[in-house]
């Protein structure tokens, strides 16, 4: 297996899907000549030409809508937002057009469009550029929401997203683009809606996705070293549909759970996870489920403030100590 970056894994998925299916095309700001603000589309313009790798004016609302229109008449658009912060200008087309068209047409109009780009906070980019918005989109029936943590998952999930006949919101981690991992040479796809146990354990379940998988894994290392606690790390990979079975199976085993996410806590992804678990695994819980999220503030710029506002392994450790009743 080759070890490649998350960025290159996404690039491979795009390239392979564009080779496999000539209805797939990529559109967004800076995707062509500049090869993407984060270089995810490197080489694609050269290989597929300007009719399949389309540079747009700065007009998120309209190119999201153009993607919707193209999807309705037989293409498979992949719409890149420079970051998900800018997708807020396009949310009307995502929520009102893409998510509802099938339903409103009485099931006549599938919507095979992918909206993708980096989300979450990078380093010191300030409030309007540091938002993890998966909960916003996961709220909406009709959308699938995917947020991979590793190169392997990024590639396999993007392929499935492109092949899916539903609109898929695909949130990449801006801070993950340079991270590396093993990706097989041979063809594979990962079905949407399947979580994965990233580290097995028996004492507590750490639920996470995207960038917080690394936070959970670091916390799990320290829990093992410092407390002899074996944490099981469950990466949601897909936020909607949510893989409740994998979550329940894990919590039945560990009886304790901490949910970690980069977004805000109020109505966050974790709130949904907790709701499913309290219903499906109530009798298996030995402690209330706790959540670790971004502080309930717009992301501040200063590095000390930013660090304090982001979810950290220390906060996960503290939450685990509490659900394990080690904290007095």
């Amino acid at each position, binding site marked *: 297996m080759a070890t490649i970056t998350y960025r290159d894994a996404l690039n491979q998925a795009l390239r392979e899907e564009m080779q496999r299916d000539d209805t797939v095309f990529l559109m967004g*700001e800076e995707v062509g000549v500049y090869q993407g603000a984060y270089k995810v589309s490197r080489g694609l313009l050269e290989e597929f030409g300007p009719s399949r790798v389309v540079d747009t*004016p700065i007009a998120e609302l309209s190119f999201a809508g153009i993607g919707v229109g193209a999807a309705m008449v037989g293409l498979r658009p992949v719409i890149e937002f420079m970051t998900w912060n800018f997708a807020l200008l396009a949310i009307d087309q995502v929520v009102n057009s893409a998510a509802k068209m099938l339903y409103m047409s009485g099931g006549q109009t599938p919507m095979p469009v992918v909206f993708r780009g980096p989300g979450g906070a990078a380093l*010191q980019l300030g409030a*309007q550029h540091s938002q993890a918005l998966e909960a916003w989109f996961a709220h909406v029936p009709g959308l699938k929401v995917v947020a991979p943590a590793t190169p392997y998952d990024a590639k396999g999930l993007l392929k499935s997203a492109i092949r899916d006949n539903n609109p898929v919101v695909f949130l990449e981690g801006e801070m993950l683009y340079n991270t590396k991992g093993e990706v097989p040479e041979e063809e594979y796809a990962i079905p949407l809606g399947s979580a994965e146990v990233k580290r097995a354990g028996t004492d507590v379940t750490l639920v996470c996705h995207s960038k917080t998988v690394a936070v959970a894994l670091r916390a799990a290392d320290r829990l093992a070293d410092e407390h002899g606690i074996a944490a099981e790390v469950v990466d949601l990979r897909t936020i909607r549909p949510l893989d409740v079975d994998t979550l329940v199976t894990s919590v039945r085993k560990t009886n304790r759970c901490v949910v970690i996410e980069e977004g805000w806590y109020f109505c966050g992804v974790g709130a949904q996870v907790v709701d499913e678990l309290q219903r499906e695994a109530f009798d298996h819980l030995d402690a209330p489920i706790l959540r670790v999220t971004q502080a309930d*503030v717009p992301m501040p710029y*200063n*590095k000390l403030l930013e660090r*304090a506002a982001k979810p950290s392994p220390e906060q996960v450790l503290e939450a685990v100590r509490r659900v394990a009743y080690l904290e007095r």
Partner: protein
Amino acid sequence: MATAAQIPPIPAGLAREDLLDLYYYLQLTRALETRLTNLYRQGRVIGGLYSSLGQEGESVASAFALADGDVLSPLIRNLGAMLVKGAKPVEVLRQYMAKRTSPTAGREMNIHFNDLRLGYLGQISHLGDMVPVMAGIALTFKLRGEPRVGLVYVGDGASSTGAFHEGMNFAAAQRVPLVVIVEHNGYAYSTPTTRQSALARLADKAYAYGIPGVTVDGNDVVAVYEVTRTAVARARAGEGGTLIEAVTYRRRGHAQHDDQRYQSTDEIARWEANDPIDRYVAQVTRAGWVGSSELEGIDRRVQAEIDRALEECEDDPLPSPESALTDVYVTPSVTEELWFRRLNA
């Protein structure tokens, strides 16, 4: 140098003092950005750092055409406009270095800060969004019968957004006193303006809104001043807005990280030879309006001022982590007096 008898009159109603002030702000902008670039390279400034090198002329000259009480909203390349409106280099440095003492207490980056009393509003970084916001501010001026004007800057790229269009249309339909400057600097990130719009002249967008559209050489400081002054007077007189296209050029990459390989060195060199500050200096000294030694005095003053500003703030404390948690809502109230009080109240 011309003798007293041959000195032509200074155009655009500018006085000699104004010419010196304009030069001061041009140099202050350039010198401050140069200093920020050094700090960025030293890792003391993190995040986005955008350069207005070669565009200082239009920022400074247009803001100079405003009066006290008017409000402008800059984009990332309009540091010069904020300085003209009274933003202090020390505030800008504190802001970039995320000091506790910065205007936003370390919460926000670059020129995302406001002083609505002085008349600048540097906040929303999503392109085009400030057009309707500034239309709202200018509408308020109109509704209150105040002789105040709003000025908003957008790039050629930002003029493709829906917010730009909706804000322009609203402002024009309601005859809101809003002057809009479209900075046609050739690029939006790497995208050339030809891929942004089918128009050769972005001022022609004004036809769609039914307001005047004017194109001006953005590297001609006096011309930009004059055009803006006319537009501002018109807005103040209740005759509505104007779209000004300032033609200029972005000589640096989009931001520090961008190697600008898509801009040819010839093209950059051509615009370097058309530098707004060089042109301005040639214009004002050749005509004999001001002497070179006066300008050199200003250069020294600018450098000293920036040195002093950096000294003043480099050891300022960073904010405490807990301070991240306040000001999400106004309880307890943080604003004893709202900025939008009447002009002369």
